[in-house]
C-alpha cells in the first residue's frame, strides 16, 4: 500500500510561506488542495513523502510557521482513502 503525508495550515499565508521557504531549501514536496477527507482551516496543504515529513515539519517549526495538523493518507485514486492523523510529542 502506498501512502502520502500532508501538513495543513491555519491560514493561506502560512501555506505560501512554507512553500516559499522550502523551495529555497530544495526539499521535495507539493502544494495541493486539501483532500476532502481531511478537515483543514486553509484550502491548500503540503503533500510530501512520509519519510520526509518529520524533517519538513522541524524545518517549518524552526522558521516559526504556524502548522495545524499532520496526516497520513492511502494513495487510492479517487476513492475516499483511510486517514490517519499523526501526533508528535512536542
Amino acid at each position, binding site marked *: 500500500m502506498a501512502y502520502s503525508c500532508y501538513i495543513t495550515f491555519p491560514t*493561506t499565508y502560512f501555506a505560501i510561506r512554507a512553500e516559499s521557504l522550502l523551495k529555497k531549501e530544495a526539499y521535495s514536496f507539493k502544494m495541493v488542495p486539501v483532500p476532502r477527507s481531511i478537515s483543514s482551516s486553509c484550502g491548500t496543504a503540503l503533500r510530501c513523502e512520509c519519510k520526509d515529513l518529520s524533517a519538513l515539519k522541524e524545518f517549518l517549526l524552526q522558521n516559526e510557521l504556524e502548522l495545524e495538523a499532520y496526516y497520513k493518507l492511502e494513495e487510492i485514486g479517487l476513492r475516499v482513502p483511510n486517514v490517519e492523523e499523526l501526533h508528535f510529542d512536542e
Partner: protein
Amino acid sequence: MNDQCLKNGNNLNLYFDNAATSWPKPETVYKAPEAQMRQACGNPGRSGHTRTLETDRLLYTVREAVAGLFNVKNPARIVFTLNATDALNIAIKGILKPGDHVLHTAIDHNSVLRPLGKLRRNGIVSVDTVPCDLEGCPDIDFLSTAFRANTCLLIINHASNVTGTIAPLEEMVRMAHGHGVNVLVDAAQTAGSIAIDAESIGIDMLAFTGHKGLLGPTGTGGLYVREGIYLDSLREGGTGSQSEMDIHPESMPERLEAGTLNSSGLAGLLEGIRFIENTGITNIREDEIEIRKYLYNAIKDIDGIKLYGPEESEKCSCLVSFTIDNADSGEVGYILESSYGILCRTGLHCAPLAHKAFNTFPAGTVRLSPGFFTGKTDIDYLVNALQEIKSLT
C-alpha cells in the same frame, strides 16, 4: 528627476496633486494589474487550483515587500485594506473599548477625526486633541501632560497633508510608551517617500495607502499591527479557510481580511514598491527635498503670496500650501487649470483642525504637491503662472 509629466501628458496637463494621489505611476504599475487579471486571477485562498495558488503567492510577495519597506520582520502582521481610511478605521475601532481615552493631533485627517468623532458622540471614548504650532508641528509640551490613566491610544499623523510638516515621531512614540500607551501612525502622506523603520521606532500600528507615495493603484493599502496587539474585527466573512464554522478565523492576517482581496490592485502596488526599492527610498527623499526647495524658494519671492508650513524642506513632505492676498483659493485653482493646465488641490484638504491652527479656516489653501517625476521646468512654468495670476489681484 525628469520631466515625465511633460512627456507623459502635455503642456496643458501639469500634475501638482501627488499628495491626493500620485501620477504618473511607473509603467510597470499600469501593466501588472492587467497581466494579473489576464493570466492568474484565481480567487486567493479559495479554490486550491493553480491560479488560486498563483494569486496566493502574489499576495504573499506583496506582504513581504510591504513588511520589508517598513522593516517589519513578520509579514503576517501586514493586513491589506481598501486604503488608509479603512486601515485607520480597523485600527481605531478594533483597539478602543468603552471608557478609553484617546489622544490625537490637530493635523489629523478626517479619516481619523471622523471615526473618533463618532465614538466620542456615541459616548464610547473620550478624546483630546494635541494642538500644533503655526508650522503644523504637534505641541510636545502639551502632549507630555495629556496622558491619563485610561489613555489607550495616541494617533499621530506622520506628515500633515496641508503643510507637509513631519511630526517628531520617535519622540512622541517614546512619550506614549512611557505611559504604556500604544501608538497608531497615519503614514498616508509619507509611506514610499520617507523611510519608516516601524520596529526600531516601536510603532504599534501603522496605516498606509497604496495610491500616493507607494505609486500603486487606488483601492490598495494596509495596516501593520505589531505582535501582541489584538484588534477586534470590523468585518467577518469569507476567507476560504475554516468554512465549516461561523466564526471568522483567528490567525493573522486573515483575521482582519474578510472577503476577496483586491489582488489585481495589489499586483500594481507590488510594482510601485519595487520601483521604490530599485530607486532607493533615500534617493527619492533627497530628490523630493530638492524639488520642494526649488518650488518653495520660487514662490516665496512672489509678493502677496503667503506660504504655510516649515521653510526648511527637510522638515516636511513634498508639498507647498499657500494663499494669495485678496484671492479665493478655489478661484486660484480654477484659473491654474483653465488657463494653464495645472492641476492642484484647493480648499480644506479634509483636515479642518489643521486649517483652524493656520487661520486658513474655512477658506482653505492652494496646495501644490509635486512628486518624484516632477521636473524643474514644470515648476518654472507653474511659478510663471502664479506670477501672472497674482498680477490680476
